[in-house]
């Protein structure tokens, strides 16, 4: 192997799948071989069987749908407010000076620690779940978008000025298009974090969702169901990640190649 030499597409996919195989094999050896007690870790087949039971008997599809809805709801809400605010901060320095110190502080407030307060304020309904995700990702979005917009190439801005662009023209026709691919990339990353927060929100005070199912299964020591729930989250995350990447490539063909 030589450093930084690219691999062919076929080999890349084969290697990527290979690790999944290694993972499942190691898991099978540990469980079927009797090295780990069934109480602590279910084997892959039990996990699949439990997964089937979840969907067939316990209406797990509804839990999945509820969780996906919460993630998207909180994420879209945070992005809808956070992206414009971040753009305004990146473009206009007084706005940045006004918000930046507070947002930098708020970014470190742990969203999960707000859960008791949010339950107090918003009850245990959907609003509370959305708020946990919102708090978890909103400040991150604002800061990252502000940095992206603020780091727009100065020579492009100057070129636009010499071509007669007005201040608002600079924002609309230089800062926004220049920052758009990176903003989309940031949102893709932040969506992953939203998944972490939704499960945390559902572990406490929820009556539906994947996180709720996991807490229920914990009470019954059903590790098969817990693992199945975790894997479902991983698969949804992977799919949404691919969808995002695909969308970004379609939207911003110029940023590739």
């Amino acid at each position: 192997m030589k450093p930084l030499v690219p691999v062919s597409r076929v080999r890349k996919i084969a290697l990527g799948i290979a690790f999944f195989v290694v993972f499942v094999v190691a898991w099978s050896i540990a469980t079927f071989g009797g090295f780990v007690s069934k109480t602590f870790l279910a084997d892959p087949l039990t996990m699949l069987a439990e997964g089937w039971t979840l969907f067939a008997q316990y209406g797990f599809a509804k839990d999945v749908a509820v969780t996906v809805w919460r993630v998207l709801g909180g994420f879209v809400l945070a992005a809808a407010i956070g992206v414009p605010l971040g753009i305004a901060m990146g473009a206009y320095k007084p706005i940045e000076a006004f918000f930046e110190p507070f947002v930098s502080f708020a970014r470190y407030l742990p969203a999960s620690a707000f859960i008791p307060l949010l339950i107090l304020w918003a009850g245990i309904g959907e609003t509370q779940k959305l708020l946990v995700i919102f708090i978890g990702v909103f400040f991150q979005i604002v800061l990252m978008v502000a940095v992206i917009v603020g780091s727009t190439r100065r020579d492009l801005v100057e070129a636009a000025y010499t071509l007669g662009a007005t201040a608002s023209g600079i924002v609309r026709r230089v800062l926004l298009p220049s920052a758009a691919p990176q903003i989309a990339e940031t949102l893709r990353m932040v969506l992953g974090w939203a998944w972490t927060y939704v499960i945390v929100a559902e572990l406490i005070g929820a009556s539906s969702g994947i996180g709720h199912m996991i807490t229920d299964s914990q009470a019954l020591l059903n590790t098969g169901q817990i693992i199945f729930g975790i894997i479902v989250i991983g698969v949804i995350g992977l799919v949404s990640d691919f969808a995002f990447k695909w969308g970004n490539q379609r939207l911003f063909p110029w940023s590739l190649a």
Partner: protein
Amino acid sequence: MSKLVIENVTRTFPGVHGGAPTEALVPTSLTVADNDFITILGPSGCGKSTLLRIIAGLDVPTSGRVLLDGVPVTGPSVDRGMVFQSYTLFPWLTIRENVCFGLRERGMPPAQQQEIARHWLDKVGLTGFERHYPKMLSGGMQQRTAIARALANDPKILLLDEPFGALDNQTRSLMQELLLSIWESDRKTVLFVTHDIEEAIFMASRVVVMSARPGRFKADVAVTIPHPRHYTVKTTPEFSALKAQLTEQIRVEAIKVEAMPAQP
């Protein structure tokens, strides 16, 4: 008639970390006639780019002023087109959209924009590349697009800041011929900054030599080689004599720059 007047322009950059301020330009004056092609020749770091940025309105002089057609320059505007040394095409726009940028900004109807873009892309030899993105083009093609984009706006004066500095020698020569041929047909007033002596002589009707930092004009040399100029003029005795004269001027300044502490 004088088009552009530079009146005692100075520029001092404040010192960083409590250091002494840097004098980039000491009182500098220059008058540019209409339809003239002037090159400003100087060693790197002599303040020639600073002067051009002040004329473009992208930087503000510490004292003095710049007048274009008698009107003081207060900021960047469409009447001063600029081509930068770095590649400044908008990467998210196609070649045609880049050329139309200024036209669209002033609200020109699309059909008219297309017409102008077609004309200028043809002039710089990029017909057929209208739908390409800048990344798909070579450095020379990108700079040709940048020239077309600046000229499409029909500025009163075209400012170029070492636009061919990043190109290889062969491409650079071709670009010089292209720009010169455009000037020969349009006679747009041009102010061209470079540190390349041959480039300065080949295109200009006047070469203004700048001294080492702090920058000021130390020589003003007329180039009387008749137009249209073929690239072979670079081998004529007249050209060589000018080159020898300017080489001497620039050498003295370059030695001074070498002896200076690095700019902060």
